[in-house]
């Protein structure tokens, strides 16, 4: 940590780093990156189920955060702002990709959950991560945003350009599919 940080709390250190980064201090921004990268990457990875894309999107999110940092006004916590920006970065790309694909992913079940790579000797945590990764795209996004990231249906609907009712329906679908898989 650069500068006198001996008596500062973690929150105060983070605030100081944000202020420095807002003034153009790239070193302070690197420290913010180190503090937040795991959570940002986790959001990108869980929303895309693709390590390579998640890495690229994590970089996109931090570059965007650097560019928009001057407009950050502390109306929300920096973490909340950064996570929201990350989700929007991913969803923006998802929308662009969907437009290119011109197709709707409509997988109805998770019957293929055990196909693909040979199963590794993993714990419950990895089983759940794998099951989430194989959910239909929109159900997965809603599940990650609602149950993992803690967004409300209204917020999810706004971010995804859909209705709160659709978000609820997708969550219901995701939970039902996951329950079935995890109960096997």
């Amino acid at each position, binding site marked *: 940590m650069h500068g006198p940080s001996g008596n500062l709390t973690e929150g105060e250190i983070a605030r100081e780093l944000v202020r420095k980064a807002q003034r153009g201090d*790239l070193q302070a*921004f*690197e420290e913010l*990156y*180190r503090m937040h*990268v*795991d*959570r940002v*990457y*986790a959001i990108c*990875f869980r929303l895309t189920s693709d*390590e390579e894309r*998640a*890495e690229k999107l*994590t*970089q996109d999110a*931090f*570059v965007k955060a*650097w*560019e928009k940092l001057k*407009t950050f*006004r502390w*109306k929300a916590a920096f973490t909340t702002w950064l996570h*929201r*920006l990350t989700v*929007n970065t991913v*969803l*923006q790309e998802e929308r662009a990709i969907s437009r290119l694909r011109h197709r709707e992913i409509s997988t109805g079940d998770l019957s293929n959950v055990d196909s693909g790579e040979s199963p590794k000797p993993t714990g*419950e*945590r990895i089983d*759940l*991560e794998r099951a989430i990764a194989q959910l239909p795209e929109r159900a997965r996004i809603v599940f990650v945003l609602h*149950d*993992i990231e803690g967004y409300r249906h209204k917020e999810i609907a*706004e*971010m995804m*350009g859909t209705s709160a009712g659709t978000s*609820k329906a997708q*969550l*219901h679908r995701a*939970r039902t599919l*996951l*329950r079935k898989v*995890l*109960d096997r």
Partner: protein
Amino acid sequence: MKCNEIEHLMNDYVDGTLPEAAITAFEDHIAHCTACNTELTQLRTLMKRTEEISGGISPRRDLWPGIEGRIEEKDRKEERDSFRIPAYRSHIRSLVAAAATLLIIAGSLTIPRFLDKGMRSLMESELRWNIGMITTAAMEQHYQGISEGLFYSISKDLVALSETTLAIIDEHMQIIDNAIEDSRAAFMNDPSDAELQSMLSSAYQHKVALLQWTAQLITNI
């Protein structure tokens, strides 16, 4: 309540969003229905396990060098742009005097008739070039003034817009700025081309329109 109704209410129940009036009926059913009870237990288990994975995941490699590289590249580009635009403006200013002289010649003497055809054509084309530069510089100053004024007036209120809206505005602004940049580059290659001048002007009009629309959006919140 029937089992299929319970299934639809189960998410609201565990999320704490089930209306008070429905809770008793829901709990009564669960207490007497083994199948629904099992489903509720499964759902609670899923939510507990989801809570456990709600942490961070470390990426396979350090992503910072890529981020730093992109930030530095953008900074360099901005520096280049900020250098290029004032240079262009100062070039325009120096041309104003020269072109004014030419305009006087054009106005009072037309183009001297004793000059041969080649020389006259060259002077006419130079005159068109200079007039194009002067009028475009004035047009750019006009639109830049309006854009900067609009941006200044809405900048502090931009946070009121959602991230999605901001991202869309940002994306559109990027496209318009690129169009301005491209039109300007094309125009600089041939300042006598009125069509290129019109394209540049049109790109600026789009920028002003987008800023006005954003201001309207903020007002409506």
